[in-house]
């Protein structure tokens, strides 16, 4: 079985194993570096494209100081006119942060929304990720008052998930606010 332990062979063995492992990891890292970046970029592109009208080119990510805004992208048409914004926005939900990508037209109308990450309760708040649900469909072209009906707004909340719905609405409101403030500049 195992060899006898002495200071020298223990140090030599650990060093040797770590060197071999580090070399292997370095190799795998180099090989997978490209595909990982490509996959991450493709995912980011897909999430932006999902919330914006088709066509036009999408800018690099801009940063913003506004509350809850992680960053935003500007979509411009071929003749240089701004056609829409995609805003990455975060609020506190029921179980943790809810991060959304919100597509907003320059006049402040919501084009579409999608959930980037969340930790809401499965079967309740997590329903906000269901693409074809009434809650999600109402955002397409939404331009009413941005708070849930219980609070006097125009947003239909998810049944039994008012806190998630409020968080979602607040995130969208942050995005719309940002786009409005950009328009005034």
């Amino acid at each position: 079985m195992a060899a006898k332990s002495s200071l020298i062979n223990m140090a030599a063995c650990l060093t040797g194993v770590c060197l071999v492992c580090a070399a292997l990891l370095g190799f795998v890292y180099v090989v997978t570096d490209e595909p990982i970046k490509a996959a991450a970029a493709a995912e980011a592109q897909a999430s932006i494209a999902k919330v914006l009208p088709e066509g036009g080119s999408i800018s690099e990510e801009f940063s913003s100081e506004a509350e809850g805004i992680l960053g935003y992208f500007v979509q411009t048409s071929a003749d240089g006119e701004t056609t829409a914004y995609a805003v990455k926005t975060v609020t506190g939900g029921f179980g943790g942060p809810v991060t959304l990508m919100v597509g907003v037209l320059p006049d402040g109308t919501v084009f579409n929304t999608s959930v980037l990450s969340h930790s809401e309760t499965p079967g309740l708040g997590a329903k906000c990720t269901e693409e074809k649900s009434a809650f999600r469909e109402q955002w397409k072209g939404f331009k009413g008052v941005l708070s849930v009906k219980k609070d006097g707004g125009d947003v239909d909340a998810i049944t039994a998930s008012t806190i998630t719905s409020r968080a979602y609405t607040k995130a969208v409101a942050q995005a719309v606010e940002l786009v409005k403030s950009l328009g005034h500049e």
Partner: protein
Amino acid sequence: MSKFSLITKGLLKENPTFVLVLGMCPTLATTTSAMNGLEMGLATMFVLILSNIVISLIAPIVPDKVHIPVYIVVIATFVTVLQLLMQAYVPDVYKTLGLFIPLIVVNCIILGRAEAFANKNGVWDSALDGIGIGIGFTLSLTVIGIVREILGSGSVFGWKFISGDGMLAFVMAPGAFIVLGYLMVLFNKLAKK
């Protein structure tokens, strides 16, 4: 011990989940659906087979006093390799399992097999042991996942057979304990015969 029984013992006599009761953290946390359970099982099996092979090879030259750090380095290396590969080629799966992939490093099953089997046996036997225990773990997780998905979401492998929701508790943490407990009772009753 015959080669064949090296594989089958992982399914029944030394089933890691229902008999040895090892690796409970990923078992309880990732089996919210059949697919998640299956993927987690396969990921663990990948690491288990490779670490068993390497550890059985290096065991004779590793000094006794540092064998645990050496094994952990080997295991952590394979987990990181797996993590990079999954991020690169199956990013969706990586996203669902997320945190539980790096946690495979501290999964008792893997270090347990290294200690209990791989450092005393040959390469070939250790590889078979890894495959056997790996299949046992994968099947157990898949079965727990299937039961929880049927009761909790009314679907199997994402295919929905009722409209609306199932019993939500089964998708959440308490359901994991309940299902695991009952399956353990059932498994041990059947295995005794």
